[in-house]
């Protein structure tokens, strides 16, 4: 029986793929599936597209930029480097939408601007979603060696062989501590003016904690931020790890003694005094004595977890404070095959995490590329659809790799995570195998190949790295960083040639004339 709003797409029933979620992750993976020709249904409990951006960030301004005026033309592939918030499509009318919704006051879009961008993309890319359809449970049926997932929803049951979850990492996480229920979570913060003249203790020193502190600077009488480990700043880590530059003002106030205190301490307990004041007992982790902090409000900016419902019970293993699913490099549950993850849940596929720098899968500008790579993988491996692997002539290989290093947004945004793979075809010649997870390319073995990506080591440099696989042995070849990121140069092509030469020779392919 089909329930729900009349005229809504995707009534309950059987579909090759079911996608859950209508945030950027769900929208992008749906569109990527459509672009490779995989039939699927999209369901979402929300009333409209946008996911978390329908509500957050709390102070209504994103952390991810879009430069309306960039060094390259808007709408080109190279422009994606400068536009972190538009979703991806081959449809020209839906490309680079975010800058068209910005008013010029900031190159960080406001939350409503981002929501408008996502709504416009949904419309122009013609993404159909069944809204108001809540996922309530899951069953697994095994029949004749084939697994079917039964997705129970408020609108009936959906059956599929491939389930793609794009439900975000949106469940508030509150740590264990006696009295922690006296604190409220980031998701329950009141309007800033409600904290006028108040003493506020914020538990957590990541972006969400510092975002709140930044927004409360004009209102709160005193702000204390506390968590066991020291605050990490992105300008120090030279990566997206740590508190972003936009939210560092409270930290400066702390070091200048301006009414903000940043503490390294574990939360022992919280109690409410008879006059209503909240008293937190903190144990310093930097060697100092215990502290007692009196506050009018305590906010737990302690992160979010993945709302996976009953999937862990079905065997989907999770890890870490965010309870992310353990995944293969292709974003498939490592313990519940057939369940895939898109959007921020894809962070569970950690990749090589070289030099401790994570992928950008937790943000739109990283996850949008994962979705495309996943769709291509599903087409090839799950639905037996032939994927075009263009021939690469040896004479053009060096120029091709050089231009990918210089312009490819996938390699720029997903450094040391996604790579362009060119392999030696057993039937002869070279083939472009497309963009793949670097962890797969490095670990899975296969024919002789070269894969190229960009990497960073935390020193501030961004540099190309070529990997060769010759007779099964993988070796890395980092190229010299260029301070202006100019990699479409004769020097780069020369460096690539010195790596490509031995690969071609070992593969019986004549190297290009120099």
């Amino acid at each position, binding site marked *: 029986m089909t329930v729900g709003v009349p005229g809504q797409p995707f009534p309950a029933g059987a579909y090759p793929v079911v996608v859950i979620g209508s945030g950027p992750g769900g929208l992008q993976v749906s569109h990527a599936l459509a672009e490779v020709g995989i039939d699927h249904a999209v369901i979402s409990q929300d009333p409209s597209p946008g996911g978390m951006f329908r509500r957050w960030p709390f102070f209504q301004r994103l952390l991810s930029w879009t430069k309306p005026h960039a060094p390259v033309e808007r709408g080109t592939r190279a422009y994606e480097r400068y536009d972190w918030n538009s979703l991806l499509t081959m449809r020209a009318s839906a490309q680079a939408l975010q800058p068209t919704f910005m008013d010029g006051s900031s190159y960080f879009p406001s939350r409503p601007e981002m929501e408008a961008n996502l709504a416009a993309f949904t419309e122009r890319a013609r993404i159909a979603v069944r809204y108001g359809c809540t996922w309530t449970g899951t069953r697994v049926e095994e029949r004749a060696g084939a697994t079917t997932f039964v997705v129970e929803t408020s609108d009936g049951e959906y059956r599929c062989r491939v389930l793609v979850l794009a439900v975000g990492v949106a469940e508030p996480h509150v*740590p*264990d501590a006696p009295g922690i229920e006296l604190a409220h979570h980031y998701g329950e913060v009141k309007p800033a003016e409600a904290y006028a003249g108040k003493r506020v203790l914020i538990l957590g020193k990541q972006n969400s904690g510092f975002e709140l502190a930044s927004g409360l600077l004009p209102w709160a009488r005193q702000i204390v931020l506390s*968590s*066991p*480990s020291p605050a990490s700043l992105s300008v120090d880590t030279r990566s997206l790890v740590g508190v972003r530059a936009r939210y560092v003002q409270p930290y400066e106030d702390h070091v200048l003694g301006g009414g903000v205190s940043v503490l*390294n*301490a*574990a939360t022992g307990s919280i109690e409410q005094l008879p006059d209503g004041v909240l008293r937190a007992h903190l*144990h*310093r*982790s*930097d*060697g100092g004595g215990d502290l007692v902090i009196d506050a009018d409000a305590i906010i737990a900016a302690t992160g979010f977890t993945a709302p996976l419902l009953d999937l862990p019970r079905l065997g989907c*293993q*999770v*890890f*870490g*404070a965010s*309870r992310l699913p*353990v995944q*293969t490099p292709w974003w498939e549950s*490592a*313990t519940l095959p057939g369940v895939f993850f898109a959007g921020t849940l894809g962070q569970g596929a*950690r990749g*090589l*995490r*070289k*030099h*401790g*720098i994570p992928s950008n899968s937790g943000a739109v500008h990283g996850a949008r590329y994962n979705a495309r790579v996943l769709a291509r993988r599903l087409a090839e491996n799950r639905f037996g659809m032939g994927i075009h692997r263009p021939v690469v002539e040896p004479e053009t290989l060096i120029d091709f790799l050089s231009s990918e290093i210089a312009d490819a947004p996938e390699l720029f945004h997903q450094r*040391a995570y996604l790579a362009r793979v060119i392999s030696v075809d057993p039937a002869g010649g070279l083939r472009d195998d497309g963009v793949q997870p670097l962890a797969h390319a*490095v*670990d899975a073995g296969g024919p002789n190949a070269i894969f190229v990506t960009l*990497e960073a*080591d*935390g020193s501030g440099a961004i540099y190309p790295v070529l990997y060769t696989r010759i007779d099964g042995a*993988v*070796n*890395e070849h*980092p190229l010299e960083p260029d301070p202006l990121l100019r990699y479409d140069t004769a020097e780069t092509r020369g460096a690539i040639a010195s790596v490509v030469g031995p690969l071609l020779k070992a593969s019986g392919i004549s190297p290009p004339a120099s």
Partner: protein
Amino acid sequence: MATREELVDALAGFTLFGDLTRPQLTSVVHLMEEVLFAEGERVLRQGLTGSGFFVVLDGEASVVVDGTERAKLTRGDFFGEASILLGQPPIADVVALRPLQCLVLPGPQLEQFLIANPRVLYRMLQAQTRRLQSAQRFRS
């Protein structure tokens, strides 16, 4: 999946962290990241730069050099520090033999971590000296 309190309890039982107070252990748990590797997954890759420092919380891993298993790692063992301290790529693969739960610290943070926690540094030195001693015994 373990709670932070459970992770603190686990670390408290490991020799490497045996001298730290509970707030210090809590800080370590916040600083390091809990990760879970599936069976057969590579954790360290021989010859590739940029790896981290790992402490095994649960499971079992194999240390493989040029395709030959040289050692096994289990709960309480740690690995990855040698290549970070020397600034060289790992000389072995580490592969999960069954689901492997670890705490990991990014390589670039190890120096600061050890300077901030000299008792951990001392315990690590002891462990390295033991490894060296048994390697010398093995040779003689």
